[in-house]
């Protein structure tokens, strides 16, 4: 790890000002930044520690929804009784992520900004070519081992997968990122990176995530996060689905449905085509399974990850049937 200067911010404004200097980066939980600094991917010259700021780790839930401060820890949000009750997909997405130690460290703002686990991205010495690290240098993953790479929102520029679980749940539930000067839906916060893989979010220099708000809804209350992976715990998703469901009073017809995917795309992936195909339909497995396939429109596999195109719709289907009380 290259050395850097260390600055402990005493206010959010202080942190934002300090972050304007060249090659400066904010440090929260450290679980992504220090990891990538050790890999040689992140080479900050200045690290701005925001973990001593007060008042940014709150979790407040009322009838309007939830407001979560950027420094709230993953574990604190996952275990919060009101988050569990009103936004189960959010709680589950966090509980099923990482390990107990990492969930005590990583913050909600930092969680959104985690970087891909692409092994080629993470190893600059062995694989100098990476359009995400060094635009125009090529993609070392193409033709390599890509079992966990993305099939949606990819191009020959980059096939890296966005690894986060929480963001899929937030995208499904129409959550919004609070950047102070502006509020950005989580879905728009992440840029599609098929043609500019080095730009992942709309965050500008000197901007800082202050928190996340999640509007309350029936679908949010009746939501779940289903994560399928190669080992039972402490593993990234092979494919995951965050779904929320509201039925009409006949308890059978779909009134509102939310579907977002993790582990299969270059960003947290809202599957609006699936939602539109299901609104007004009866909740039946065959109907749901047929609609779920629409999530894979435009999916491309460059090799070992072809299985995700089959797996993801099945994960969506099982998750929807689960929140519908039928699985």
């Amino acid at each position, binding site marked *: 790890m290259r*050395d850097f*200067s260390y600055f*402990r911010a005493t206010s959010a404004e202080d942190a934002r000002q300090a972050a304007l200097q060249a090659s400066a980066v904010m*440090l929260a939980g450290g679980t992504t930044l220090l990891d990538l600094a*050790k890999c040689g991917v992140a080479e900050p010259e200045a690290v701005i520690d925001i973990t001593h700021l007060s008042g940014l780790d709150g979790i407040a839930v009322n009838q309007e929804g939830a407001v979560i401060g950027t420094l709230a820890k993953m574990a604190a949000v996952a275990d919060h009784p009101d988050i569990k009750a009103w936004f189960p997909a959010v709680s589950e997405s966090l509980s099923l992520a990482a390990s107990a130690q990492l969930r*005590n460290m990583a913050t909600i703002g930092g969680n959104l900004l985690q970087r891909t686990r692409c092994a080629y991205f993470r190893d600059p010495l062995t694989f100098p070519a990476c359009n995400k690290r060094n635009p125009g240098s090529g993609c070392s993953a193409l033709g390599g081992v890509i079992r966990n790479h993305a099939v949606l929102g990819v191009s020959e520029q980059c096939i890296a997968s966005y690894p986060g679980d929480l963001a899929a749940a937030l995208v499904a539930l129409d959550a919004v990122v609070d950047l102070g000067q502006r509020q950005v839906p989580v879905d728009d916060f992440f840029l599609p990176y098929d043609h500019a893989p080095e730009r992942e979010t709309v965050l500008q220099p000197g901007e800082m995530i202050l928190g996340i708000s999640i509007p309350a809804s029936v679908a949010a209350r009746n939501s779940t996060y289903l994560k399928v992976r190669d080992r039972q*715990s402490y593993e990234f998703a092979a494919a995951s689905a965050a779904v929320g469901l509201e039925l009409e009073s006949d308890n059978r017809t779909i009134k509102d449905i939310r579907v977002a995917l993790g582990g299969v795309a270059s960003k947290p992936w809202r599957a609006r085509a699936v939602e539109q195909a299901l609104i007004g339909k009866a909740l039946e497995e065959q109907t749901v399974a047929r609609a779920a396939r629409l999530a894979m429109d435009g999916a491309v596999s460059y090799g070992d990850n072809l299985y995700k195109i089959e797996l993801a719709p099945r994960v969506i289907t099982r998750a929807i049937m689960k929140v519908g009380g039928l699985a």
Partner: protein
Amino acid sequence: MTRTIQLTLDINGHSHELDVEPRVTLLDALREHLLLTGTKKGCDQGQCGACTCHVDGKRVLSCLTLAAQVEGRQITTIEGIAAENGDLHPVQAAFLEHDAFQCGYCTPGQIMSAVACIKEGHTGSDEEIREYMSGNLCRCGAYNSVVAAVREAAEAAR
């Protein structure tokens, strides 16, 4: 460009002064600067759990924590959990009782994680213990004995 910073760290109830480069992790500060070598360096990238310590009573990975970040926090390492008179912590005793290790390298991290796991109340079943201890890898594969030790220590603590 090496600049050092002066830190005061509260470790196992004692105050330690040290002068380190900003990039020094809590793990390296403990092992290299303070010679508290009970905390182990396994992967050094947040994947194995061998470096687990407690910061303000919560289990964290010291390899992904800067020493500078935890100034003013209470740090507890494996050296700090036995009683003053040398009596082992009940989780340490349970690990011995159940032979919950082979080579022993992951053991300090397993024990620090287990102490926190029990305190968090995530020991309702063997399945729950396995889930909440999944951040601590054991390459010798002593998992069954680790689960037995955690279960027994949790029952004793109730």
